[in-house]
């Protein structure tokens, strides 16, 4: 087994029975990446690209259908919502909010969770036990309830949504990373590094962390979609990102009584969520198959 005890890169032994773990081939999943890139560009350039302000109301023009329907107009290509606000603008600006929420939450949760997992896995014993029970307790608290309680206590806001989800989500990362670390700890190169005199900090940061990166990347990618979906559910319950900020989840929730009469109000942001989340999920699957198919429990 080739291992460099200094910088910790490691060639893990191949499972003896595995040929090129034939997932979907080595080709990049162009479609998911394309979709994600498009939305990121749209989100970043929303003020430039958007035909109108997402906040401007015009009750007179409420529920205008998309341009290709009867009664639609190209002034509002995707129609207007219940308060007459332009749907295309709101979907574009909504990309900013929804994507930002997803990415921020996941970054916060993964950073904290990975740290906990690394420490717990490395030290083991009592430290591990305490951290893991904390993790278990956290994981058993329903995300949605915590977000509701926060919303009711301090009022719904973007940061409350991020906070509420991240505060529960980190536990998942902690558990998975810890599992990874436990496996790694069995390998010789850690013992070698210790013999070579490396301290806890060095081992964790230089040897363990880089080898958990693959897992982390996969998990992060898969979780962004999950967070966007949870935000949508929170908006449905009244605890999501509050109006008038356009967020896809809130937009679907606002349009839920008009599913057949003004279908575009909920269907279009729903499609946006579907595309983005599907893309992240497919990308995550590909990443997992490429980086380490052993991560099947994700």
């Amino acid at each position, binding site marked *: 087994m080739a291992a460099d005890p200094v910088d910790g890169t490691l060639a893990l032994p191949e499972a003896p029975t595995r040929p090129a773990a034939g997932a979907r081939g080595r080709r990049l999943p162009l479609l998911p990446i394309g979709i994600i890139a498009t939305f990121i560009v749209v989100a970043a350039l929303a003020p430039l690209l958007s035909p109108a302000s997402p906040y401007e109301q015009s009750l*007179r023009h*409420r529920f205008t259908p998309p341009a290709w329907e009867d009664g639609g107009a190209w002034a509002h290509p995707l129609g207007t919502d219940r308060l007459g606000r332009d749907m295309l603008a709101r979907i574009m600006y909504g990309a900013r909010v929804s994507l930002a929420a997803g990415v921020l939450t996941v970054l916060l949760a993964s950073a904290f969770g990975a740290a906990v997992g690394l420490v717990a896995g490395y030290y083991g014993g009592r430290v591990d036990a305490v951290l893991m029970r904390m993790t278990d307790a956290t994981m058993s608290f329903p995300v949605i309830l915590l977000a509701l309680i926060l919303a009711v206590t301090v009022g719904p806001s973007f940061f409350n949504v991020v906070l509420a989800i991240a505060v529960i989500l980190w536990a998942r990362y902690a558990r998975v990373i810890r599992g990874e670390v436990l496996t790694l700890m069995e390998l010789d190169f850690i013992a070698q590094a210790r013999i070579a005199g490396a301290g806890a900090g060095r081992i964790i940061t230089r040897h363990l962390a880089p080898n958990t990166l693959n897992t982390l990347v996969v998990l992060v990618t898969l979780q962004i979609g999950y967070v966007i979906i949870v935000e949508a559910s929170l908006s449905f319950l009244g605890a999501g990102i509050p109006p008038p900020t356009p967020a896809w989840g809130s937009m679907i929730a606002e349009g839920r009584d008009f599913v057949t*009469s003004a279908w575009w109000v909920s269907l279009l942001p729903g499609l946006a969520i579907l595309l983005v989340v599907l893309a992240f999920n497919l990308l995550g699957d590909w990443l997992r198959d490429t980086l380490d198919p052993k991560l099947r429990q994700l």
Partner: protein
Amino acid sequence: MKRSSRTMALSLSLSLALALCAIAGPAWAQAKTELTVVLSSFAGETLDPVLQGHLVKYYLSPMFDYLVGTTPDGTPSPAGGIAIKWENSADHKRWTFHLRKGVKFHNGDELTSEDVKFSLQRAMSKRSTTGYAGPLRTLIQDIETPAPDRVVIVTKESTLIIPTYLSRSLSTEGMVLPKKYIEANGDDVFARKPVGSGPYRFVEQVTGAHIKLTAMDTHWRTGTPKYKNLTFKVVPEETTRIALLRRGEGDIVEVSRERVKELQKEGYPIHFRKEEAILHAYWVLGPDGRVGPTKDKRVREALNLAIDRNEIAQAIFGGHADPAAIPMGLSWSFKDIGFKVTPDMQYAYDVPRAKKLLAEAGHATGFPLDIYAFQLPGLPEGKAFAEALAGYWEKVGIKPRLIPVDYPAYRKLWVDRKAPEAVGYYNIANRDWIGTYALLEKMAYGPSKPNDTANDPEADAMIAQVMRQTDREKINTLMRNIYTRLRSEHVGVPVVYLHSPYATAKTLGKWTPGTVMYDLFLEQLAAGK
């Protein structure tokens, strides 16, 4: 041979079809003896009348009788209640009620004046949290039972309000409960297995799902009931309520104003309770009264002129609302007190004039204004409405900030006066003149009332006088003046009167939902009246 196999195939497919229908078909098998009412919320879901007020009347009114009954339009009537006659002493301090004879509770006990006294004391007890327990506590001095069919209520001050406060038109204080049963079994058992004297008796409750009642064989309120079983279902999501209607699993379904058009197109009869509530917005007071720019009457008027009530009625409320002109103007009381809303009282939609007034008051560049956004029972459009308000006021230069909350959080801020000058709103249930007085005494009266929104000493003085009057003419004049004053001072932003729609099954037949708060007069339906 061929024929028999064909017959077999036919009967087999027929039975298969029938079986499939039975499993998955709509419940057209629901016979005409069942009536299902689908509501969006049951509030506290308690079955003990003293533990909640208002909303629980929907399902408690069929189970209990009131001391004073009313007609569907809210007029106290001897025909609908336990009291077949009532009279007051000359000084309006002694109210004598003559009770109907031969009324039995569902467990067979006879209803006497003892039960009436017991129920009233219970409604006024510390444990009670009904809407008008407080005023009754301060007002009632004693309750006498000179005979099994007579009750005398003695009040500390002269008053006209006793019969109405104990009637069906307000809250649950007038419900007559079985003294022997409650004393024998305790409050907890009664709350779980209530016993009343109404046309329907309790069968079962599954919290979060339904409440089932079944009809007594005959009852003086309804005769022989048409519907043997009455089920109330609670379904929070509107799409699901409508699906129940379409499937025939709901006969009377609470719907929002937006879906009315769609349902009317499909031929479902929609019954409206017209002007069921007034949507009234107002500014939260500070600890010492009005603060900020809204101290100036011109600013308050400007904010009123800046919104297009017609457009709001059409856009937010699907056209099922009418512009309102009088702050806290409960229109069902107007005819009682002889108040007429003249055209000049209606607020015009006048943006230039609004801007002018703001400039005159020194706020040409606007000012920040917090608007709390929340939903309420009967007002699912709450948040959209708040957003619309913000939109209109932005156009005249105000800088609105929308703060979404849920109603309890907002109420705390309002009552604790921790959010001065913030805009809040409520859909105040419409009612007759006594109920209106009760409302004004809560929401427009300064002295020691945290719910005050008017902050007007002149109005306070007039309201205080109403309390002491027993002359109807004087009361009417006072109340007319109060309303005129509230309007001229622009104490709030009266927006629209809301019509509440109830969609019904096509087979329901004639039904008058009436105009009494939180009461659908279902036994009227049952009697086929």
